[in-house]
Structure formats: C-alpha cells, structure tokens
C-alpha cells in the first residue's frame, strides 16, 4: 500500500475499508522498520496511540458525518510540543525524562478531533539548527539519502512524512524550521501568520518568531490540519482573536490574474544552480496557469540574517534561563547554588544552544544592547516595511525555500555556513507573515522546494498558490525509497 493522504485515509475510514487500529498498526510497523536508518523519533507513543485509535473508532461509528477528517488518522509531533505525561525533551539532554503536566493547545485540538499520536519526533536541541544534527539524541537521516541531513530543526517531523510512516506531523518554525526541512525531504511544510496558532505548550525558543505548523504530503492536507489547530487561544496572549479564513474555500481558485513577485535577492549567488533551475521552471508553470510574474526587490535580505541572529539568540538566552535544575530537568548538584546553576546548564546544554545563549546574552548585555539588540529591532521594522511595499505591487512572493538541496551530514561544521541555510526563510518570521514550501523538482535525486509567501493573515492565499502549482505538477507524488518500500 502506498502512503496515502489524510483525504484518502478519511474516505477509507468511512467506507469501512480500514480502521484506526489498522492504520496505527501499519504506522508503528513502518516506524519499527525504518527507525534504525532514520532516527526520526525520540519516543513512540504506542499506548497513547491505541487508546486514541479506539476512541476514534467510537467517534467514527457514532458520528460518521460530523467526525473531523483527521479522526482516526496517525500523526507525529515534534518533541518541542508538550503532551501531558508523555516524555518531551526538545532534543536536549537537560530535559531527559521530562513529562509535561499539560498538553499544548495545538496538540489538544488535534486530539479533540480524534487524531492518533504515533510519537514524538527528533529535532535540533530546542529547535536551534538547520540540519537536526544538533539533537542530543543523534542526527536524523533524510529518507531520500540517509547520508544526508533532512534539514532542520523539525527534521524528524519532515522525515517521518517523507518516509511514509504518517500522513502528517507538526513542527515549529522560528527561522525556517518547518519550510526548509519540508523542501529538503520533498513534502509540504507551512508556517502560518504569527499569532494564528497558539504557542501555549510549545517549548519556547524565540517567542516573537516561533510558530507551529504542519508537514503533509499535499496542500489540501495542510489546509485540513491548519483549520483544525488555528484560531484564538486565551492561553497565548499573542494569539490573534480575528476569525480564521477557511483555506479550503479558496483552495481551488487558481492563480489566473494573480500577480506574483520574485525577489531578486532570493536567487542570489548562494543559490545552487539546480535549485535555481527547478524554481524558475516552477515560475513558468505558474505563468502558464495565468499568473503574472514580475521581479521585485527586498533590499534588506542581506541584513535580515544579521537581525535574526541577534533577535533569536537574545530571546533564546532569556527563554532558556528557566533551565536551572530547580523545577524540572536534570540538576548537577554542587555545594553552592551558583555552581549548581553553572554546572547544570554547562552539562545539560549542547554546543549550538551554548553558542546562542552566549551570543544572545552578549547582545543584551550592558554596553552592547543599543548597538546590537536595539539596532536589530529597528532593522526588523525595515524588513517588514519592505515586505509591505512589495505586497502593494504583488499578491504573493514565489522563491526558493532553501538555497541548497539536502547536504551531507557533517559538511557544515562552521556555524555561519549553517546559519546561511535560513537566508530566504527567516525574513518571513521577522515580519510575522505566512510561508509554505511545496515540492518543485529534484537535483540528482534530491528534492527542491518552492516557497510561497503572502501578507499577514493571508494564509489561505499562500495555500491557494501552492495548491495551484502542486495540481499542475507531480513532484509531490514522488516517493522516497522508504515510502515506496511500503508498497
């Protein structure tokens, strides 16, 4: 059986050709077969999954017409999402054995819809990274070539969908951590408008940038997951109370008459030629469907990376102050409290987390605050203004998701070269606008992603453009070796 989409599985559950337990059995068996190669999971939640599968069966029997399309369908959660009583480590040693006392809102909404949890997925420690090599629990293999990274930080969530174990998963995106791994593994990955999905129960990295979002095989599935988890939550004070547009209503509207902008800075020198070719071919597909494409300019793209690498580390250094070995997490006991803090954090955090905590603390420290943090906050305003100006000319932006395809493990040991991975994804986080990655080709058998970006709260428009492109091509239907082996 080839991996099926949420839409297909929802139909199969209703025509009686499968059951939630059968789907969970298959997902768990697939995970068992592939984990040795992929290491996509930090915990498999077998017991919780079967409990939810049985509850979903009842929901489908009693309310077949009103049950959510997600009811009875297996899924996986990035290990930065809290689930009551289930191990949640954020890929860090310091949280080994942590069992949250509550469930995050986005996850609770999936559970209420009848979703079946297969497990918690591997990620870069505290979501800091672009390759998932920063996990304290070992790297994740890319299902297209296990010697290569799946991108990051949500590498496990991307890999498990690309491997065909589950039809969808949740990740988090602070500078590209959903879109970039989606591109590198050949699946759909969506970062919504900031404030659309509650961050309650998401382990915080950089609170003004973090958003939860889905990985799926199709844009339609992405819309189904998004509508289930989006919307106001009083438990997150940055959650927006405005009504959520239904992306399914406009999904099939097409791109005829739409104006799409190509930022010239997003196809710069750092873009691999194969990626550029694939994305330019995608532009022609959109043009053939009636969209008007034009070049636009986002002049501050170059400095946006610098803004991000001040603001994200500054917020992380503040957010991670809570890991002090007192209320949760591991503790290294020393005679003095100060030494207990120093050793607990020195032993518990990995290299990239230490680097960012140091960078953020420096940028916020007395004497440097104005030159770094305040200056970065001002340039962040400029980045947003440039997007606003471009969106007066065009309806959406189309561009690569990542300047490169999946790279070999261990090939980017210099921090700056790793940071460059996010150069065309992180501006959307700085501006709080929605972005999606959809498969748009291959270079030597490795997937390439097309990114679509739109103004704030135009999440439905992002999915509409991505869906139009997807329906005109078949890149999303191509399967990684691990997914074809399931056939």
């Amino acid at each position: 059986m080839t991996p099926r989409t949420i839409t297909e599985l929802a139909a199969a559950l209703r025509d009686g050709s499968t059951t939630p337990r059968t789907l969970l059995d298959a997902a768990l068996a697939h995970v068992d077969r592939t984990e040795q190669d992929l290491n996509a999971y930090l915990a498999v939640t077998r017991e919780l999954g079967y409990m939810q599968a049985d509850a979903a069966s009842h929901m489908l029997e009693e309310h077949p017409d009103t049950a959510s399309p997600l009811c009875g369908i297996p899924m996986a959660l990035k290990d930065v999402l809290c689930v009551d009583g289930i191990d949640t480590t954020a890929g860090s040693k310091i949280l080994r054995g942590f069992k949250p006392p509550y469930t995050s809102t986005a996850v609770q909404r999936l559970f209420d819809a009848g979703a079946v949890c297969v497990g918690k997925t591997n990620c870069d420690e505290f979501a800091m990274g672009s390759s998932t090599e920063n996990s304290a629990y070992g790297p994740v293999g890319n299902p297209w070539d296990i010697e290569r990274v799946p991108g990051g930080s949500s590498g496990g969530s991307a890999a498990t969908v690309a491997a065909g174990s589950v039809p969808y998963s949740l990740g988090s995106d602070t500078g590209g951590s959903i879109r970039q791994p989606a591109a590198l593994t050949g699946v759909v990955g969506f970062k919504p408008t900031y404030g659309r999905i509650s961050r309650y129960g998401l382990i915080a990295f950089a609170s003004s940038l973090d958003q939860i979002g889905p990985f799926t095989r199709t844009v339609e599935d992405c819309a189904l997951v998004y509508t289930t988890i989006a919307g106001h939550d009083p438990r997150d004070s940055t959650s927006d109370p405005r009504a959520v547009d239904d992306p399914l209503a406009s999904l099939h509207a097409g791109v005829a008459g739409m104006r799409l902008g190509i930022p010239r800075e997003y196809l710069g020198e750092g873009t691999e030629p194969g990626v550029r070719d694939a994305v330019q071919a995608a532009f022609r597909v959109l043009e053939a469907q009636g969209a008007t494409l034009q070049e636009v300019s986002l002049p501050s793209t170059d400095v946006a990376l610098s803004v991000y690498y001040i603001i994200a580390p500054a917020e992380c250094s503040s957010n991670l102050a809570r890991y002090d070995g007192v209320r949760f997490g591991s503790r290294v006991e020393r005679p003095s409290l100060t030494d207990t803090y120093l050793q607990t954090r020195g032993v518990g955090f990995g290299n990239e987390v230490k680097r960012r905590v140091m960078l953020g603390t420096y940028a916020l420290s007395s004497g440097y605050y104005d030159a770094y943090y305040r200056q970065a906050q001002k340039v962040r305003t400029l980045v947003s203004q440039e997007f606003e100006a471009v969106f007066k000319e065009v309806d959406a932006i189309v561009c690569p998701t990542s300047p490169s395809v999946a790279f070999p493990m261990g090939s980017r040991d210099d921090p700056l070269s790793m940071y460059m991975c996010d150069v065309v994804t992180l501006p959307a986080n700085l501006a709080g606008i929605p972005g999606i990655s959809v498969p748009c080709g291959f270079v030597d058998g490795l997937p390439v992603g097309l990114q679509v970006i739109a103004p704030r709260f135009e999440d439905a428009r992002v999915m509409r453009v991505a869906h139009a492109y997807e329906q005109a091509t078949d890149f999303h239907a191509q399967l990684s070796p691990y997914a074809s082996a399931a056939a």
Partner: protein
Amino acid sequence: MTLSRAEVDHVATLARLGLSDAEKDRLLGELEAILDHIERLQRVDTSTLAETAQVGDLVNVLRADVPEAPIGAAAALRNAPATDGSYFVVGAIQGTELDA
C-alpha cells in the same frame, strides 16, 4: 570585531553557563566570526525607524479576573529534581557568594 577572553568569561557568568577553558577558547573564535558578519547591521540608517519587539498589533491582553483551578502541587512537583513532597528543594541561598 575582537572579543576578549575576559568578555567571554563575563558573558558566560551572566548566562550562568559553566564552560571549560577549551569551550571558551572555541566560542571566542566562533562568536568573533558571527559578530563580524553581524557588523553589517551598523551600516543601516535607522534614524527614522521604530523598534519592532513583536509583529502583532495586540496590546494589553488581559484575561477576565476569574479564578481558575491551579495545576496542583503534585503535578507541579512531578518533574522536580528534588522535593520534600510539598516544595522544591534547593541548596541554601544565604551565604552563597553571588558573582558580580
């Protein structure tokens, strides 16, 4: 951008990160390279720009002043490295030399 080893020590203390000498040496070089790259921020004229602390337009978000059931001591203590059953247990703070 030159960073001194004393600055690395100072920042590590502020961040309460216990780092080995080897880690500090490595971080000194890495942070210098990152700060060199970030230096380009200083070239942007920001004289007319306001700061962005958050992208949303919500202000003063408050909930109704209605009591809700708390999480409860047992759940709050469940993950603590040390408790006495009702409280978190930590070493004495009094008399501990706090760094400058």
